[in-house]
């Protein structure tokens, strides 16, 4: 191969490498949030179909729909313990355990209407002192937060 050929080969190779390696994306990255174990030491009352943790922006429990950030996968009645995880952007949050008085699937399917209804099918399971302590979520960090939930 002559020198022109070699130059063309090197040129094609460089162009190919430049095209394919420019601004290499990294895909999905670590997230921030909270995870832990939910344990239920007491027997489940009959009127509660499931329990979950909800993350609130502030302590105004009456305006749940405006304050709700997210909630964990509901834990079905009768469960002793379950792992939970919630993705959150960095910030300060209040977390409380709630009991669902309707089926969790029904709740998930109609969440928008339930949250704006006058009678939300939820009961708060924590006392106000527990809820009042905010947790802080840092960037790309997972906060471990194990919770025991007592039915009152």
């Amino acid at each position: 191969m002559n020198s022109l050929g070699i130059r063309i080969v090197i040129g094609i190779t460089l162009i190919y490498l430049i095209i394919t390696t420019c601004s290499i994306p990294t895909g999905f990255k670590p997230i921030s949030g909270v995870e832990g174990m939910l344990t239920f030491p007491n027997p489940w009352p009959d009127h509660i179909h499931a329990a979950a943790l909800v993350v609130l922006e502030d302590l105004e429990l009456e305006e749940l729909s405006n304050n709700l950030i997210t909630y964990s996968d509901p834990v079905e009645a009768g469960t002793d313990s379950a792992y939970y995880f919630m993705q959150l952007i960095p910030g300060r949050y209040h977390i409380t355990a709630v009991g669902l008085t309707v089926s969790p699937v029904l709740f998930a399917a109609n969440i928008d209407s339930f949250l704006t209804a006058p009678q939300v099918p939820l009961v708060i399971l924590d006392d106000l002192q527990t809820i009042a302590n905010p947790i802080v979520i840092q960037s790309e960090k997972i906060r471990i937060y194990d919770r025991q939930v007592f039915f009152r």
Partner: protein
Amino acid sequence: MVRYIHKFTALLLIITGTIFGQDRGNLQGTVIDSINRNPITGANVYVQHTFLGSATDTLGNFSIENIRPGTYSIVCSVIGYRKEVIHNIKINKTPINLQFDLKRDILAIPQVVVTATRKEQDILESPFSVAVIGPREIREKSAVRLSEVLPYIPGVNTVRGQLNIRGASGYTLGAGSRSLLLIDGVPLLGSAAGNISWTIVPTSEIERVEIVKSAGGALYGSSGMGGVMNIITRNAPLEPKTTIRIKVGGYSQPHYSQWKWRASPGYFHAVEITHGRTFGTHNGWIRMQKYLTDGYSQLDWEDAYNLTGKVKLNINSKLNATIYGNYYTEEVGLASQWKSAADPFEAPLGDDNDHSIGYKFHANGSLNIILAPDLIIKIKSGYFDVKWQNYGRTNQDDSREKKGFAEVQISKNLSDVSNLTSGLSLQLADINAQLFGKHSSQSYAGFILFQQKLWSSLSVSLNGRMENFLVDNISLDRTFAPQFALNWNPAAGIALRASIGKGFRVPTIAELYTRSQLNIFRVEPNPTLRSETSLAYEFGGTLRSPQYRLLSNFVLEGALFRTHFKNLIEPLPDENGIIHFENITNAVITGAELSLTTGIFSELFRFTAAYTWLDPVQINSSGSVIDTLSYRYRHHIATTLSYRWMVALAGVEYRYASRIEKVELFQMNPVTKADKRVPIHIWNVFFGLQWPRWEVLFRVDNIFQYYYVELERNPGEERKFSITLSKTF
């Protein structure tokens, strides 16, 4: 039904028995290796632009009779050698004797295909789009599983191991595939679930893989409505040969410390020993493989043994038989989803020990009888036995499936320019599974393929298949699938093709009867499912040039396609999150693909690039788009640039797939709508040395540690390093 089969068989024999007599010429000769002068067995010799052809016997002899007088080009092709063409052969009453001295080229691109029309045919004369994976692609990928090679083939993709040809299948929890897998022409789909078992494919012993991408059911029936992949295993070499191949490697620890889940990186190895030899006029090989991997995620581990063998009996020049068998046993992690987006490589809490133990046994045989130079009968049969048992926290399912297959095919050249292939096919299956119940299924089919060359450059194909399905002895469906196709070769190296065909697929027993739970997945049966049907159109073209300036073996291919599905079966969660397989009324997949393969500077470099575009949508009765079909990539690009000089090789691969636009199976958090779907960008590099008896290849896959999900809540493969050593004695 039996009465109809008898009538149909009689009709086929009458049609195929038709003989056209004229003053014809004969052609005979030998095919030998240009270096050691040994005869080459199984080489395809054919008269270009006709259906006349023959394969060489064990002495390298061939004979083609009844050729209409004229001037022809005679083509000789066989895997492992460069294709040779002898031009301007004048055929008249005087017999012609030819000798082909073939030059070795283990990386030669296969140019004769058998799957598209059920007989050997030059790929440029195929009326359907066919992609071929040759030895080069498989060796450069150093693949343990064939599914590792597929995402780099135009129009082909996998979603968590499920084969997708032009987006036909999506992801169905492995319960039903619209793409049929054949091994040496015998179906390899599980009888109950209809899913593909990549584990039993002996990747190192593959001669080539042919992928017929044109949709339709006329060629291979129900499961082939979205395309067909035929794995053609190699025959044993003429001289005794033993090959030991060892692949060892490891996975990187996750790039982000938050995701680290084990103290040391995962490790894997595959050890294979293959011995092949001839005995008399016959030949055979046997292969043993052990594969062990820790996996890149907690439940991705696998511990497997595979024993495969093939014997080819060349009984005489008119009769040969092949027997193939495979036994595979495995213990694998039973993965369903990640622990959470915060710990994507860990199993859900309590599922750490979920695993599955099982075996697969597959045997097939074929008998080829040349009754006359233009009349060939092929008889194929197969037996498939699968058993597995899950040991999971939420799932203890088990399954035992047995399937039998038999097919008789008659191929007759009615004249130099017309060919008729027809046959009967039978499949019986018996399933006893905790998740399906106890069921049986049968299918009976008759098929006919007619090809006629209108002029030397234009051929027309008319195909049809009638199939009757029974589940538990009750007829589920009876369908006729016709297909019409054209192929035009306006100039040497140029082919244009167009086809229209109806396809159909009956629901699998898994789609009808599965009742199971694995972690959060809960699947309920839907015995009211109906068969799905399709109408597929395709227009495509190929440009091949052996040499153009600095380019060599240049192949440019393009295709436009559209498939209209009715009653498409998809897994859909109901309002309670329970998954049922349901018929979607109407769906359309429109797409285009463009691929380029070329050598540069006398094959010093080889460049391939393939782009596939899909528009998969669900439509209403008036044709308006109402939704996107799930688990399909809209854009897909795969490129490879490889370099070979003397014994050295090196290369870079890049693959891009756009973000999957719609997913079905996992319910997102309704408040945050949290989702980790991203486009896929994967770069791989490899370099190695290849001598005739030694080979070493070093690969890094996903070199930039790109993190993605193919299926939501299931991360894609981590960066992995591997070194493959191969020694032949």
